[in-house]
Structures are given as structure tokens and as C-alpha cells.
């Protein structure tokens, strides 16, 4: 699923040009990074919120673009802002009454094994399982698996050591295969997950 991605250095150059008021560079920066931001937030929060969260990310990012000095890659900088946006959204959501559209691990896992499902459905189900992961593991998993970043880049975005990313990715994998495995044997409960 690794998309052919624009060079990090080029994106950073666009961000720095946009900071100096170059409108064309700003547009290129947006087009080159938007997909990663959208998929990142869509995998961390409810997909229905992805558009709003993406916009909020850019609103914050462009508001503080003048303080971006190119010391790290602009993509990483943007994703770390997206990460904060999601954290803030989750906090805000906890203040409000709960919605019923929380991801249901059991249900999703059982649908994952329904015969005759399409690849699109499979993607949706896997997406739900990923969203049901523990927040830290999910973050590491989405950055490295869905966006295809290296462990080092993911560590910078999450502000943690590379070894932490490595173990979170491994645990996320463990959690996911356990969920899928438990769905194959429906009589077992998922309490261990």
C-alpha cells in the first residue's frame, strides 16, 4: 500500500517557499501531503471525521507555518500536528456523551471472516480492527504500515525512541492477529485482547 511519494526534501522546500508567501508552492505542498494526512487521521479517528480533521490540521499547520524552519521534514512536521489534532478531538469527544458508532471489535472481526467478502469490504473491516487498537500501537501501526514511513520517521512524529515504535508495531500485529483468530473461533471471548 506504499504510495509513490513525493520526495521529502521537495515537500520541505515547498513548505519553506509557502512560508515566504509563494501561493503556488503552498498549493503543491497541500496536494503532495494531503493524502498522507487524510489517511493518517482517518485511521486514527472515525473515518467520517477525516475531512474535518484534515482541514483542522492544515489550519493549524498553515497558522504556524511561519515558525517552520525546515529543521525536520515538512511531512513529519505536518503529521505530528495531525496527531495532536486527533488527540484533541478524542479528548473533546470524551467530554461529550458517547456515540454508538464506536468500532466494535468482535463484530468487525467476525465480518472479516465472512466468506465472499470483497477486497473493499476486507479493507473496511481491517480498518475497523486497526481503529480498535490501543492508541499508541495504532499510531505506530498506521504510520509505518498504512503510510509506509520508516520506524525512524514514525518515532520523530510520535516523539519517542525508535525501539518503542518497533515494539508497538509488533504488539499491534499481535493484537490484530489475535482478534482475527478469535473471530474464527466464535465461542471464545475477546477479553484477552
Amino acid at each position, binding site marked *: *500500500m506504499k504510495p509513490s511519494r513525493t520526495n521529502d526534501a521537495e515537500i520541505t522546500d515547498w513548505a519553506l517557499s509557502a512560508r*515566504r*508567501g509563494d*501561493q503556488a508552492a*503552498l498549493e503543491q505542498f*497541500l*496536494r503532495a501531503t*494531503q*493524502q498522507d494526512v*487524510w*489517511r493518517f487521521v*482517518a485511521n486514527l479517528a472515525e*473515518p467520517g*471525521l477525516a*475531512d*474535518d480533521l*484534515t*482541514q*483542522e490540521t*492544515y*489550519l*493549524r499547520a*498553515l*497558522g*504556524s507555518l*511561519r*515558525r*517552520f*524552519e*525546515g*529543521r*525536520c521534514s515538512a511531512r513529519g*512536521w505536518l503529521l*505530528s*500536528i495531525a496527531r*495532536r489534532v486527533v488527540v*484533541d*478531538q478524542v*479528548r*473533546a*469527544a470524551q467530554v461529550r456523551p458517547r456515540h454508538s458508532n464506536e468500532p466494535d471489535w468482535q463484530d468487525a472481526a467476525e465480518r472479516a471472516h465472512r466468506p465472499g467478502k470483497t*477486497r*473493499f469490504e*476486507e*479493507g*473496511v473491516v*481491517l*480498518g475497523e480492527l486497526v481503529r480498535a487498537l490501543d492508541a499508541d500501537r495504532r499510531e505506530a501501526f498506521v504510520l*509505518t*504500515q498504512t503510510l509506509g514511513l520508516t*520506524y525512524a520517521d514514525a518515532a520523530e512524529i510520535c*516523539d519517542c525512541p525508535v*525501539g518503542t515504535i*518497533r515494539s508497538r*508495531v*509488533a504488539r499491534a*500485529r*499481535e493484537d490484530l*492477529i489475535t482478534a482475527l*483468530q478469535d473471530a474464527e473461533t466464535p465461542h471464545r471471548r475477546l477479553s484477552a485482547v
Partner: protein
Amino acid sequence: MKIGRNLRRATDDLLMVRCEIFREALSARMDSELGPLSEKDVDEHVASCLACQAWCDRTTALRRSLLVCVAPPVPDLTDTILANTPSPAPEKWGLRVALALVAIAQSGLALTQLLGMDTGMHAGHGGFTMSHLLNESAAWNLAVGVGLLWAALRPQAAAGQLPVLAGFVLVLTIVSADDLAGGNVTAGRLESHGFVVLGLALLYAVHRRHRDRLEPGPVTGDLLMTDNHISLRDRNPRATATADRPRRTTRPAGHHHAA
């Protein structure tokens, strides 16, 4: 007996821990990343551990499913984002260019004085001491010119020069007024001070513009961008709860302003 049982439990724990670290190594290997163990150790363990072999098969299958499953289409929000965000103000070059011109004029003036051309000073009558004082003043004038040029090129350098130049202009104004009253200075020489005064004014303007535009970043600024964000509060009620919360929760180092 008790000791033996404890020992066995410890061994079981050790086995669990061992599998966990090998699985981490397998997971890293799958992503072509550096694992916590040598490849040889991992291979040896996996060859002898059925649970880890199964784990490896399942995670590989999971990875494949993630690769082949169809990702939801990503909408293009570029136009919406552009419409909703004010683009950063373009940098205005006028002030810096003016400062550079003044700096060059000031330096040129100092150089002609150093080279002994007539700049309104009666350099002929002073003897050695006077001659050296003139050279010294020319050197200072040249230094002011160089400093101003540097600030025109690198606006962040403007702040440090302000007190020096302001002090210079203040004292120069007082002594000039005194000398003018006593008839010790020519109008031509006084006019040449105009560049320093103009330079000070432009230096201040460039400094202000630079500060307003960029606010010299904290050392870790690139990583801590979110504490001055503009919230979508009006359009997005979800943001309200967080917008009201003080946002300065990150590392204290983020608030140091490098002058």
C-alpha cells in the same frame, strides 16, 4: 520443593519474554527495519518454536491483506483548505533594500575618509594624534556600515545592533549640537551623520518587521508548532473544548526565545 516450583515459573516467564522479543524482531524484519536481535538468533529460535512460526505466518498474511485491500478514496480538499486559511504574508523587501543602500553609503563614506579624501574634516592640521583619531572614527563608521549591511542580509541580526547604534546616535547628536554651537564642525560633516540616523531608523523597522513575521523560533520550534494554533471553533464545535484549554503543555524549552 517450593524453590523448584518458583524456578519453573521463572523459566516460563522467561520463555514468554523470549518469544515476545523474537516476535518484535520478526515484525521489524518484515518491515525491513533493524531488529533487537541478530538474524541468526531469530532464525534459530523460529526454527525451534512452533508458536512463533505460526505467529510469523499470520502476521505475514495480515500484512498481505493490508497491502491488497482497497484503501478508501481520499478526497481532494486543496481548494477548501486554501479558501479557509489565510496565506502567510509575503515578505516585503523594501525596508531591507533601503537598509542595504544606507549601509553601502555609510561604508563608502567611511572608506573615503580612511583613504584621506575630503569629507568635510580638516584633516591637514592635526599631527599624528589627530590623524589616528580620524582613522579610528573612520573605522567605527565603516563598522556601522558593515553591521547595517549584515542586518539587511540577516534581519535576525538587527536586534543586537539596536542598542549599540542607538547609543552612538544619541551621543553623536549631543556632541554635534555642541560642536555646531561652538563652530567646530562643518555642515557637510554633519550631513554625513544623516546616514547613521537613517540607518538606525531602518534597522528598527527591519527588526520590527522580522519579529512580527517570524518570531525567532524556539530551538525545538519545528516540533512544537501547535501551541499557537487558530481553532476552527466557530465552524467546528468539536474543537471548542480543546480551544478553551491552555495550550502550553509542551516542553518548557519550547518557550525560550533565541534573541
